[in-house]
């Protein structure tokens, strides 16, 4: 009996301790949940405005059926955004008065106390933005994939710029060691690192990158933060001119010849097959270049789809990247796409309109940076070569250099 009662006491003690444990675990959790309440209600508001917006959008879309009007809309939206930004920033005084408070892509409110002079860029597209607006001398750290403009690699080699990790493997210690005034990152995979760096007292800004107008916004935001508003406006105007040029050419060509817009299938990755949905800037680029993304009905950014679905949608043009050599040479990638079972019925394959974008040229199509305008122009040429006084047969299947259109427009010069 003694033994029994002794172990019973132990059970009671153990149970009491369990209760304390439960309290200790649930109490901080409760506090965390409370702090989240505000955020959730904010998200609720966002969702309801989003719902209202999408309702409006679907109504207006149902009114227009002709494909040319859709193209017009995509362009008009971008133009409106551009004009808005122009109005907003042209009225700004000569130089920025710090401190400034901005809202970033994650909805965080960030205050920049003084003009940043030590900048870390954690994505290749952001590095390109920094160079384009003439803020390259502020860069102290970049991610390991930043390679454009090519001088970045030299600067890394001679130690002027340090590497601060990859894209999904951000090296927090390396960033802290650089003592940056500001770190630019992307939402998505990098989100946990944004919060962790902010916790360590580092100013972090996540930049939007889901559409071409997001790219416009991000360029202006970076320009404002680094007191390079004028340069950013110049970049934007050059970009807008290029897009307008491409759009006008394509629009006239479609109207004149009374043809329908071509259907485009964009392959991001072959196994499993990833393509682009409507929530990607690539979808925007395709639309602005006059094409129709066959998977624009999918609302996520980069969905996985089945091979059959591509056959069903019968695209006129197929575009793929070289996948960084994982699937062999660009020629191998081309053959892989051409030889897929059942794909020989697809118009793009029958008419020899499969294109692999490779090298430094290919990188402009996957980075939501200043080169999206060049990418749109190049895509317009690939989609409608006739509109630019070229023939379909003059477009090679493996494209490694831009088509020359400098006679019409000055290229975006990155010093």
């Amino acid at each position, binding site marked *: 009996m003694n033994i029994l009662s002794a*172990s019973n006491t132990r*059970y009671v003690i153990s149970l009491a*301790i369990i209760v*304390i444990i439960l309290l200790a675990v649930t109490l901080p959790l409760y506090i965390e949940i409370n*702090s989240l309440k505000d955020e959730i209600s904010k998200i609720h508001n966002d969702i309801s405005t989003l719902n209202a917006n999408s309702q409006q959008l679907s109504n207006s879309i149902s009114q227009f059926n002709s494909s040319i009007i859709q193209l017009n809309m995509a362009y008009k939206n971008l133009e409106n955004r551009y004009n808005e930004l122009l109005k907003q920033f042209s009225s700004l005084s000569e130089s920025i008065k710090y401190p400034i408070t901005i809202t970033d892509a994650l*909805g965080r409110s960030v205050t920049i106390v003084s003009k940043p002079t030590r900048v870390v860029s954690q994505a290749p597209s952001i590095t390109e933005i920094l160079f384009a607006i003439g803020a390259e001398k502020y860069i102290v750290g970049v991610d390991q994939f930043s390679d454009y403009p090519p001088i970045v690699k030299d600067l890394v080699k001679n130690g002027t710029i340090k590497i601060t990790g990859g894209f999904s493997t951000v090296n927090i210690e390396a960033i*802290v060691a650089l003592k940056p005034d500001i770190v630019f990152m992307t939402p998505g995979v990098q*989100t946990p690192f944004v919060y962790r760096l902010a916790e360590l007292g580092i100013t972090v800004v996540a930049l939007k990158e889901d559409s071409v107008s997001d790219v416009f916004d991000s360029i202006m935001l970076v320009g404002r933060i680094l007191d390079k508003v004028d340069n950013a406006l110049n970049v934007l105007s050059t970009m807008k001119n290029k897009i307008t040029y491409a759009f006008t050419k394509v629009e006239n060509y479609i109207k004149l010849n009374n043809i329908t817009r071509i259907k485009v299938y964009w392959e991001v990755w072959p196994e499993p097959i990833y393509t682009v949905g409507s929530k990607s800037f690539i979808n925007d680029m395709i639309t602005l270049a006059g094409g129709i993304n066959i998977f624009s009905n999918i609302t996520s950014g980069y*969905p996985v789809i089945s091979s059959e679905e591509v056959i069903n949608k019968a695209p006129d043009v197929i575009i793929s990247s070289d996948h960084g050599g994982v699937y062999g040479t660009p020629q191998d990638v081309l053959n892989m796409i051409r030889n897929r079972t059942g794909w020989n019925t697809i118009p793009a394959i029958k008419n020899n309109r499969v294109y692999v974008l490779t090298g430094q040229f290919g990188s402009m199509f996957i980075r939501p940076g200043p080169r999206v305008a060049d990418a749109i122009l190049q895509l317009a040429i690939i989609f409608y070569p006739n509109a630019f006084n070229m023939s379909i047969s003059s477009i090679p299947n493996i494209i490694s250099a831009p088509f020359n259109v400098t006679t019409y427009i000055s290229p975006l010069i990155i010093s």
Partner: protein
Amino acid sequence: MNVSYIQSKYSRLIFSVIILFILLIIISILSISIGSSFINVSIAIKALIDPSEVNQTIKIIIWDIRIPRTLSGIFVGMLMALAGLYMQTITLNPLADPYLTGMASGALLGVSIVIVLSPIIFGPYIITISAFLGAITAMIITLTIASKFRLDPIGLVLGGIAVSMIFYSFSAILQFIGGEKMVTIIIWSLGSLTTASWQRTWFVFITTLILLPPSLLMYKQLNALLLGDENAQTTGINPKITRLISLIVASIATAVTVSMFGVIGFVGLISPHLARLTLKSGDHLLVLPLTCLIGSIIILLSDTIARIIGSPGEFPLTPIMSLIGAPLLLYLMGRRWKHG
């Protein structure tokens, strides 16, 4: 069981604990001074003793990044090893690990739901909370199923497998729908101490502080479980209640860890075995402290290596841990066979 045998058992424990403790301290100091930006050990120690003497950046790197990370590693190792030991004792199964009740799949589903279905904006705590809720939900379902079978080991193991499968399937479907968001989920599921902040360190520290003492207090009951239910009852111990309490302790340890640092596997499975092989005993009073110590060492060592070889980025924790731990286990097994 004569006196000299008991003495040798305890002296072996004390000897191992002292050796491993010294090892733990050495690895801790190494893990504080080794990282992407290498800090001289003497400077690291100086920063530890008197932070005002070193410059601000080194102070932040050491005090706000590496020390929380090292401490988190120590406590996470203890919690996971403890949970693993409990699960193995409860189920009398040497292959049991802390995720036996489907908590890894549950947490994975929680995280998948949040990442895939929510709008892109999520706060710093939402992943932690969803993982915790997912893990606890899976555990409660498994427990409910197992309680229909009087909580016996087979009911627990099979119930856990079923629940785990179901949760895993749902999260796999969600990952597939999520497209590129899959990467975020997979990286999370491999476990990492990158997210260790002081707040999280306090969290795992307090959990360890609460869970360890009652665990040591329960060593007799746990030992009795090893004898099987009938024999346990003859020693005056209720196996069902003991199992329930142990299960809850293990589950809390696992849920807290998994929600903070992702699915950290392997350490829970291997630490108890390493401790038993070292002590040549199954007595929980001896095995438990050593298991915790070994767990800490494995996590800390793996995390340091993951940081070094993953540079400039960082490798996930679980694969590195398996690569270090599995050969160690084979070595100890080989020694045991050799000596009979």
